[in-house]
């Protein structure tokens, strides 16, 4: 509370009056608090950041092209489709459920777009809208089966995995592969449209400015209410750090093609989900249902509606991801959404710190998680290792992430933070 000159700063803030509370102010205090939480087993995003640094270092040593601007541009573009799917997985994992069919649903959505757009010659936006609505309907069907019959979600979605893969093959028909025309807006969006350099810097400035403004207003509101608040110095440092990071990233990517609009779309969806999960009543309900379903029900939360909303969201994101993947590939074929899409999306969510046990995780986890997964994939491809090795490495990383999740959960239990 230094250097702010707030009138309320003279008295002790309402939330700091307990003498047992060690005061933690300024930058040092914030860092100490993070370290404290980590020791208590609340690791948050620390493992994924550490993992990312390790993976990038190793891959860069193995192949100096890995951290080149061109490769990172590509990596960002490749991340978007599965990243969007992972965002949906985060939502279902938060309520302690799972959706194993996101790969099939994304493949089906790709097929639907291709058939409607190319086969029937409908406008692209109608084809995309149809695919997304279909995703929402699939999620709604899952939620109804889950709510009415109480079938475990992994069984429902395992059935969906097979059924919707079948439906995709049926929709694609005998041809088995439909190419999207290269001059269409969809393909153009996913492969060729990049943010102009000046605009990418503007995005950075707007993000940092927005962070500072909301932080400042929030701090002022808290002080006015007699609560403790972040100091102005801390807010400035935080925003400056974000501005510097975003500028460096944008500058480095702008050395070659720049920041793809598809990646911007993904980040925008992450930000929207972050807001919904952390700052709305719905978000709190999702965490509550994942933490203690019975408590949520007694608190008057419509638990079934929460389940419905997350299943619908997850399948919808899967459908959106499928559209992006098809646009990126400029085709929908029998292997769309197959292979490792399913596992990569779930792995991204878990690696990003979303607990398989429910109630813990964040939207940003999907962003960082998918970058880890995509880095492994991209790095191994650069080393000319084929998909057999890639599958094994990704499987190992997923296992590692789950082990970290389980260990941190045990640590939370022993330190009374479970």
């Amino acid at each position, binding site marked *: 509370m230094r250097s702010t000159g707030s009138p309320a700063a003279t008295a002790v803030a309402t*939330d700091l009056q307990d003498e047992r*509370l060690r005061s933690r102010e300024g930058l040092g205090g914030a860092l100490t608090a993070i370290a404290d939480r980590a020791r208590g087993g609340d690791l948050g995003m620390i493992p994924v950041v550490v993992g990312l640094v390790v993976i990038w270092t190793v891959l860069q040593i193995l192949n100096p092209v890995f951290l080149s601007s061109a490769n990172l541009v590509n990596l960002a573009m490749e991340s978007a489709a599965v990243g969007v799917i992972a965002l949906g997985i985060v939502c279902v994992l938060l309520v302690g459920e799972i959706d194993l069919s996101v790969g099939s649903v994304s493949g089906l959505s790709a097929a639907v777009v291709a058939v409607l757009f190319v086969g029937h010659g409908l406008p692209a936006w109608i084809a995309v809208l149809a695919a997304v609505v279909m995703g929402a309907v699939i999620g709604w069907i899952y939620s109804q089966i889950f709510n009415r019959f109480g079938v475990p979600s992994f069984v429902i979605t395992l059935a969906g995995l097979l059924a919707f893969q079948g439906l995709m093959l049926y929709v694609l028909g005998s041809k088995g592969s439909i190419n999207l025309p290269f001059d269409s807006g969809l393909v153009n969006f996913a492969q060729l449209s990049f943010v102009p350099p000046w605009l990418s810097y503007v995005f950075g400035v707007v993000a940092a400015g927005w962070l500072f403004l909301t932080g400042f207003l929030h701090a002022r509101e808290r002080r006015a209410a007699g609560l403790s608040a972040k100091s102005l110095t801390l807010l400035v440092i935080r925003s400056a750090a974000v501005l510097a990071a975003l500028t460096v990233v944008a500058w480095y990517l702008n050395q070659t093609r720049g920041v793809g609009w598809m990646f911007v779309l993904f980040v925008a969806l992450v930000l929207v989900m972050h807001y919904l999960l952390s700052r709305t*009543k719905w978000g*709190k309900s999702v965490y509550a249902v994942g933490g203690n379903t019975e*408590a949520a029900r007694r608190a008057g939360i419509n638990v079934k509606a929460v389940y419905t909303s997350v299943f619908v969201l997850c399948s919808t994101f899967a459908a959106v991801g499928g559209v992006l993947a098809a646009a990126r590939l400029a085709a929908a074929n029998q292997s769309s959404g197959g292979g490792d899409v399913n596992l990569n999306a779930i792995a991204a969510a878990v690696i990003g710190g979303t607990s398989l046990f429910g109630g813990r995780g964040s939207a940003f986890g999907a962003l960082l998680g998918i970058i880890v997964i995509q880095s492994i994939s991209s790095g191994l491809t650069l080393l000319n290792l084929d998909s057999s090795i890639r599958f094994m490495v990704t499987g190992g990383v997923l296992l590692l992430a789950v082990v970290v999740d389980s260990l941190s959960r045990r640590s939370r239990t022993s330190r009374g933070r479970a």
Partner: protein
Amino acid sequence: MSAQPPPGVLSLRGISKTFGAVAALTDIDLDVAAGQVVAVVGDNGAGKSTLVKVLAGVHPPDAGTITFESRVVEVPTPAAAHRLGIATVFQDLALCENLDVVDNLFLGHELRPFRLDTVAMETRSWELLRQLSAKIPTVRIPVASLSGGQRQTVAIARSLLGDPKIIILDEPTAALGVAQTAEVLNLVERLRENGLGVIMITHNMADVKAVADTVAVLRLGRNNGLFDVRDVSTEEIVAAITGASDNVVARRAARRTTTSEEGLPS
């Protein structure tokens, strides 16, 4: 307080509830006034929990009337109970351990659903906790890191949010240590001072003697006596609970003459 109780806020008359062939409650009467602590005691299977669930709107009664503030009301759902002003703190507290104290207090009743008013919620949380003289160092830690007594405090504070007239506490001290039990009993007294009617379900005679104004005894789903705490002994309550003055508790007490007359340690 209980000498001339103000008109009852909540009156139950002839409440019955059966589960299949089992009559869990038969013809139960109960009155609670503002600023009065009514202890409901009874053996296992006496119908205490069923009575709580009837009042909380979990199980609607099969017969009988519930009168709340001189109106005959129905309590079909927990939400209806909440709207009337009947708040229930269940034995398992129903807190979300992954959420912090503020989130738990406002769970399901958040301010500004689409842009949570965290500042107002935190301010109100501190008001509530101060009102209960709660000993919770910070409201921004997960409930998982609080002690049993602190959790009980959070659960009670949450029930106060809707400005209830009646608070039902289901075995509030069952899982607590000596000091924490004392804290919760202080809390109950504070609720009474604030003019709330308190129904306290308990097994613990020491708690009954410590804070209750009247004791209603249930036995096998029926009323088995209503006592003023000041003129009843623990032995009489135990006799009403077990249904005989020659009961297993009395026989134990007779065997162990060194045991204090106030009954069993908790």
